[in-house]
């Protein structure tokens, strides 16, 4: 679009700048707060300029955590969160890719029935089925383990559905050409479908990772061992103390916010590339 309307330009930029400021300000406050001395944040006025205790606060949070709140070191919690989020993401992606592959490309009995079965589970978020799921996990002796943290969250109707829709847009001749070229079902999946789905995989990876990273209720329910505390749980515990040590909480918050940002930055290259070069 070629346009030259200075006022419209000015107006658009003003709106955008205000929007960005609104989003960035709380983050800025969190960063500033995490560099204050203990007690500085309890005085009523929140400082707007960074303090001098940044390194100290972060080191303390990273290495020892807040034992009074039963919160282990951030390093451990971040690691737990990362393992859980990755397990959920990778698990969700592989299961949904495979089930979408089966539903779209194989003609088996009750195919549509299974598709609808998967589709119906879209309507049942974790919170709805949390008690029976807990029972199952407890019976399988998976409490206080990474398996218990991630496996029940792996099944994903959303991703299956999205991959199904995407697979259906791939022309059928592609499969036929691959068959003539001597590719069996698995080779077709690996050599043709997967590379074509890279964009979708990247986008879903980001969404799933953040979903896994932000899990709160489920980890809270099934882990009692502090060794399995995730960062979101840890932050919650620290804030529910009688006198929360806000400077440490904020340091944990900033650290907790970083991995999703990194994942987005890394994956962005993949899906931006995919969006501009439509591979059709």
């Amino acid at each position: 679009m070629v346009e030259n309307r200075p006022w419209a330009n000015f107006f658009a930029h003003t709106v955008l700048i205000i929007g960005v400021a609104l989003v960035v300000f709380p983050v800025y406050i969190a960063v500033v707060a995490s560099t204050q001395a203990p007690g500085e944040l309890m005085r009523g006025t929140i400082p707007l300029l960074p303090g001098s205790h940044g390194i100290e606060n972060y080191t303390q949070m990273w290495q020892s955590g807040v034992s009074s709140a039963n919160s282990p070191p951030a390093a451990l919690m971040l690691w737990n969160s990362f393992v859980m989020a990755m397990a959920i993401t990778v698990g969700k992606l592989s299961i949904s890719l495979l089930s979408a592959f089966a539903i779209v490309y194989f003609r088996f009995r009750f195919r549509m029935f299974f598709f609808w079965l998967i589709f119906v589970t879209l309507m049942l978020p974790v919170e709805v089925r949390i008690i029976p799921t807990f029972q199952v996990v407890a019976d399988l002796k998976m409490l206080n383990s990474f398996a218990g943290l991630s496996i029940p969250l792996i099944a994903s109707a959303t991703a299956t559905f999205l991959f199904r829709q995407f697979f259906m847009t791939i022309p059928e001749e592609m499969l036929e050409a691959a068959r003539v070229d001597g590719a069996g079902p698995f080779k077709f999946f690996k050599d043709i479908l997967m590379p074509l789905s890279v964009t979708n995989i990247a986008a879903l990876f980001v969404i799933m990772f953040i979903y896994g990273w932000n899990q709160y209720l489920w980890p809270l329910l099934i882990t009692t061992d502090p060794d399995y505390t995730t960062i979101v749980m840890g932050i919650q515990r620290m804030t529910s103390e009688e006198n929360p040590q806000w400077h440490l909480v904020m340091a944990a918050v900033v650290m907790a916010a970083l991995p999703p940002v990194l994942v987005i930055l890394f994956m962005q290259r993949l899906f931006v590339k995919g969006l501009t070069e439509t591979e059709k």
Partner: protein
Amino acid sequence: MASITLEGLKKTYTGNVNAVKGIDLHIEDGEFVVLVGPSGCGKSTLLRMVAGLEIITEGTLKIGDRVVNKLEPAERDIAMVFQNYALYPHMTVYNNLAYGLKNRGFKKDEIEKRVRVAAKMLEIEEFLDRKPRKLSGGQRQRVAMGRALVRDPAAFLFDEPLSNLDAKLRVQMRVEIKQLQRRLKTTSLYVTHDQLEAMTLGDRLVVLNAGQIEQVGTPMEIYARPASMFVAGFIGSPAMNMLPVDYLNEQGANGLLDNLPDGTDTVGIRPDDMHLAPPTVPHLIVDSTLELFEAAGAESHLYVTLANSDQPTVIRVSGQPPVAEGETLRFYVTRDALHPFNSATGKRTGD
């Protein structure tokens, strides 16, 4: 290299839809056979059955001496060129060509050698590192052909490969396909609905209608002696005119129609066989009114309605005759230009 034999090949879809109703055909080793027919006549289904992409309901399919009814497409030693090319969009042209060979466990240097040879033959060497989306329609078409070529299969199967190209490229690729096939002498089965493509490409033509063979023969045999009214109307452009014998008798047949084979009630006349000047040999005379004059460069098409009849008829003449729309035209037809048919059976009655 191998012959292909189809014996009583049938395809029935669920719900008792008979797409292909028993096809017997033998394709010689090295022969170029074109399957032609209107859309929905089962030609693509038949080709896909040969390819192994469609299950054969009944009958036997042999490639060489091997019955291949139950084999996977890859095991049938055929290569297929698809209408929309079906190139792998994420692979370079080189990998598109190499994929089939890789899956068959060819050595790297053998793959390299074959891809280079095929690319050179099709003049796509400079595109080998590009992705298909960076290529034009004609270039993609070449890549699709290359993918078939590198495999050096027993047979090529073409499923309307030129219908996505513009008119000029289509003619060019048609010539190239023909030359390539002559050079390689690979048995080929080619599906098209374009009768011009069919006429120019095939050693033999198979005209299909409603899942059955109407006629098999060389293009000129079929053109000169169509076995049924369907074939007569389908091959040749503009289509053959069909005139009732009774009508022609009324108009003054000069006794020319007296010795037509038994059962003839309709005669077909090609638009080129209707002359505006009286020939020296005995002829029929028909009067008509010119409705529309279509000048197509070297030739012209005259759309006329016959006198005392509302039958639309097309005449093809060379050059541009000095005629005006609305004018009454008299045209002449000789005896040897008449194709006798029986309109009830739709079959040719003799000659």
